[in-house]
C-alpha cells in the first residue's frame, strides 16, 4: 500500500467545467437582468418619441386631456401620483415604523410574558414558547398584508373605507372648510380613502425592512445605553433607531417606489378626475391609473401619448430611487463616522 495517499487532489475536469459554467450562468443572468431593464426603458422611450416630438414639454405642464379637442397633457396625473404617494408614505412610515419598533423590541412578547407570569406559566414547556410565537404571529400578519392583491384592496376601499370616512370628511369640510386641506367635500372616491388604502399597502414593506434593520443593531449598543442610565424609550429613540436609520430609509424608499407605481387600487379609489387640488377629499388621477384606463381602447396614436406618460412615470420613479439611494449613502457615511 502506498503511504503517501493524497487527500487533496486537483479539481477534476468535470468540476472545473461545472465551475466555469456556473460562473458563466451567474454573469449571464446578472447582465440579462440589466439588459432586460434597459430594453424595457428603451422600448418605452422609442414608442414615446413621436409623441415627445409632437407635444414637447407642454405635455408635462398642461392640465387638459381632451381627445375631442385634441389636447393632451398630464400635469394633474403627475400631481396626483406624487401627492398620493407622499401622503401615503407619511402615513405608512408613521405606522410602519411604529410597528417595526414594537416588533423588534419585543414589546408584544414582553406583554405576553408578563401575562404568563401572573398565572405562573412562564417556564411551562408549551406555554413558555407563547411570547415568541405571538411575536412571529404579528410579524406574519403584517407581512401577509403584502400578499393581498391590489384589486382586493381597491374593493375593500370602495365598499368599506369610503363609506366609513365619508361622514367624518364631510363634517371636517363643513366645519373647517377654510383650511385648504379640507377644501372640498368627499362625494365618493377621493384622495383620502386612496391614501389610507395605499399606506396600508406599503406598510409591510416599511415594517419588514425597518424591523430587520432594528434587529440587526448590535445589542452591545443597547446595553451601553442602558448602562449609561438611559431609559428604554431613550435607548430606542436615541440609539437603536438612529443606528438603524440606513435600513429604515431603505425601506421607506422601497415603499415610495411601490406607492408611485400602484395602479389598480388607486384607479378604483381616486376618482380618476383630472383635477389639481390640495384638498384631501378631492378626486384626483395618477399616471398609472391613466395608463390602465386608457390602454385597452388605445389606437396607434394614443399609444404614443400613453408611452410618453409612461416615460414620465419611469423618470419620476428613477429620480425618487436615485434620491433615496443618495440619502442612504450620505447617512450611512455619518453613521460610520460616529462608530469610529
Amino acid at each position, binding site marked *: 500500500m502506498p503511504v503517501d495517499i493524497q487527500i487533496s487532489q486537483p479539481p477534476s475536469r468535470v468540476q472545473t467545467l461545472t465551475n466555469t459554467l456556473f460562473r458563466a450562468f451567474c454573469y449571464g443572468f446578472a447582465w440579462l437582468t440589466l439588459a432586460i431593464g434597459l430594453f424595457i426603458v428603451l422600448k418605452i422611450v422609442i414608442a414615446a418619441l413621436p409623441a415627445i416630438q409632437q407635444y414637447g414639454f407642454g405635455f408635462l405642464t398642461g392640465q387638459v386631456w381632451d381627445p*375631442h*379637442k385634441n389636447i393632451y397633457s398630464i400635469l394633474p396625473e403627475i400631481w396626483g401620483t406624487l401627492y398620493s404617494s407622499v401622503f401615503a408614505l407619511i402615513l405608512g412610515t408613521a405606522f410602519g415604523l411604529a410597528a417595526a419598533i414594537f416588533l423588534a423590541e419585543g414589546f408584544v412578547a414582553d406583554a405576553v410574558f408578563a401575562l404568563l407570569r401572573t398565572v405562573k406559566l412562564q417556564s411551562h414547556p408549551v406555554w413558555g414558547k407563547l411570547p415568541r410565537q405571538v411575536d412571529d404571529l404579528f410579524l406574519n400578519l403584517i407581512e401577509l398584508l403584502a400578499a393581498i392583491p391590489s384589486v382586493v384592496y381597491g374593493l375593500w376601499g*370602495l365598499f368599506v373605507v369610503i363609506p366609513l370616512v365619508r361622514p367624518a370628511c364631510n363634517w371636517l369640510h363643513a366645519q373647517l372648510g377654510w383650511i385648504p386641506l379640507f377644501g372640498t367635500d368627499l*362625494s365618493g372616491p377621493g384622495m383620502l380613502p386612496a391614501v389610507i388604502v395605499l399606506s396600508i399597502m406599503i406598510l409591510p414593506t416599511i415594517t419588514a425592512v425597518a424591523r430587520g434593520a432594528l434587529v440587526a443593531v448590535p445589542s452591545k449598543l443597547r446595553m451601553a445605553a442602558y448602562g449609561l442610565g438611559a431609559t428604554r424609550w431613550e435607548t430606542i429613540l436615541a440609539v437603536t433607531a438612529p443606528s438603524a436609520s440606513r435600513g429604515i430609509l431603505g425601506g421607506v424608499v422601497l415603499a415610495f417606489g411601490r406607492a408611485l407605481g400602484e395602479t389598480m387600487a388607486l384607479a378604483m379609489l381616486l376618482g*380618476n378626475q*383630472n383635477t389639481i387640488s390640495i384638498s384631501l377629499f378631492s378626486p384626483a388621477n395618477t399616471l398609472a391609473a391613466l395608463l390602465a384606463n386608457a390602454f385597452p381602447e388605445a389606437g396607434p396614436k394614443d399609444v404614443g401619448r400613453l408611452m410618453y406618460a409612461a416615460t414620465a412615470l419611469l423618470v419620476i420613479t428613477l429620480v425618487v430611487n436615485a434620491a433615496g439611494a443618495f440619502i442612504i449613502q450620505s447617512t450611512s457615511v455619518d453613521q460610520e463616522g460616529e462608530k469610529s
Partner: protein
Amino acid sequence: MRVFLSSLPAAVLLATVGLMSSGGTASSEEPADVRLQGAGASFPFPIYSKWFKVYSDAHQNVEIDYQSVGSGAGVENFIDNTVDFGASDKAMTPDEIARVKGGAQLLPLTAGNIVLTYNLPGVKELKLSREAYAGIFLGKVKTWNDPAIAKTNDGVKLPDSAINVVVRADGSGTSFVFTQHLSAISKEFAKSPGTNDMPAWPVGTRSKGNEGVTASIQTTPGSIGYVEFAYAMTQKMPMAQLENKSGAFVAPSTASGQAAIASATLAENLIGWAPDPPAKEAYPIATFTWLLSYKKNADPKKAEVLRDVLIYCLTDGQKESEALGYLPLPEAVAAKVKAAVQNVQ
C-alpha cells in the same frame, strides 16, 4: 394564524383538483379540429361567451376563444390579422376598414340599452327630461331638487343634496354611444366634451369599467351614472325613465330598446346608429355591437365554421339575449345580417 396556515394548503389543493378536473373533461373530448380566435369589445362579452360555449358544446370539433380586450384593441388585432374575428361597439371607421387586408364584413349581432342608474334612497321612480340629464352630465344641473328635475317628478321627494355624477374612467364603447346620444340632444355637449370613447367629462368622479361605475353608485347616496342595461338589471338598481325625441318618458326595456334600434338605418356595410330615435315608444339610448369578420379568409374551413357560428348566433342565439340583458335583433335586421354572412368566405 395556525388555523389559517393549515387551511391554506387545503385551499390550494382544492383549487388544483378543480383545475385538474376541468382539464380532464377537456382532454376527454375529441381534439378540436377548428379553433377560432376572437378579441374585442367587453360589452357583448357575456352573450358572446354564452353563444360560443353553447355552440362548441354542440360541435365537439370546434373551439371558439373570445377575449374581451376592449373595442379599440379588438379593431387593432383585427387589422393586424392576429385573430379570426374581432368585435367592436364603435364599429370601424372608413380608414380602419380600408386597412383590413381581405376586406372587412361588419355584422351587428346583438344590441343593448345604456341606462342611467341612480342611488337615491326612497326614490323608486325618476323621470329625467332631456334638459335634465344633459344638464347633469354637463355639470349644469347640480342638485337633485333642481327645477329641471323637479318639473318632471311631481310627488317625488327629491333631496336638497348635490348630484354625484359617476362616469367611465376607461376608454369604452359605452361612453362613445352615450356621448354620441348626448351630443345629438345638446349642442353644448356636442361642442365639448363631444362624442368620444374617453371624453373629458366636465363633471363627476370616474370609475373603471361598468362594474366600477355600478359599485361607485351603489356605495354613494345621491349619485347617478350610465351603465349597460345588464349591469343595472343584475344588481337590481333603479333606472331612470328618459324623455325621448317625441317627448315621451320611456323606461329601458327590451321592447323600448328594440324600438330604438329599429330606427337605425344600416348602411351597405351594416354600420348604423340610433343617436336619437324618433319613435314614441323608443328608449333614447340603444346601440348595436358589431362582430368584425374577414371577407376573404386564408383557411376556407375556418370561414365555413365561422359562417355556421354566425348563423346560429342570428337565429337560435337571439333567444338567449333577453335573459342576459341584451336586445334581440329586429327580424328585418337579422335577415339583412344573415344575408351578409355569406360574404364571409
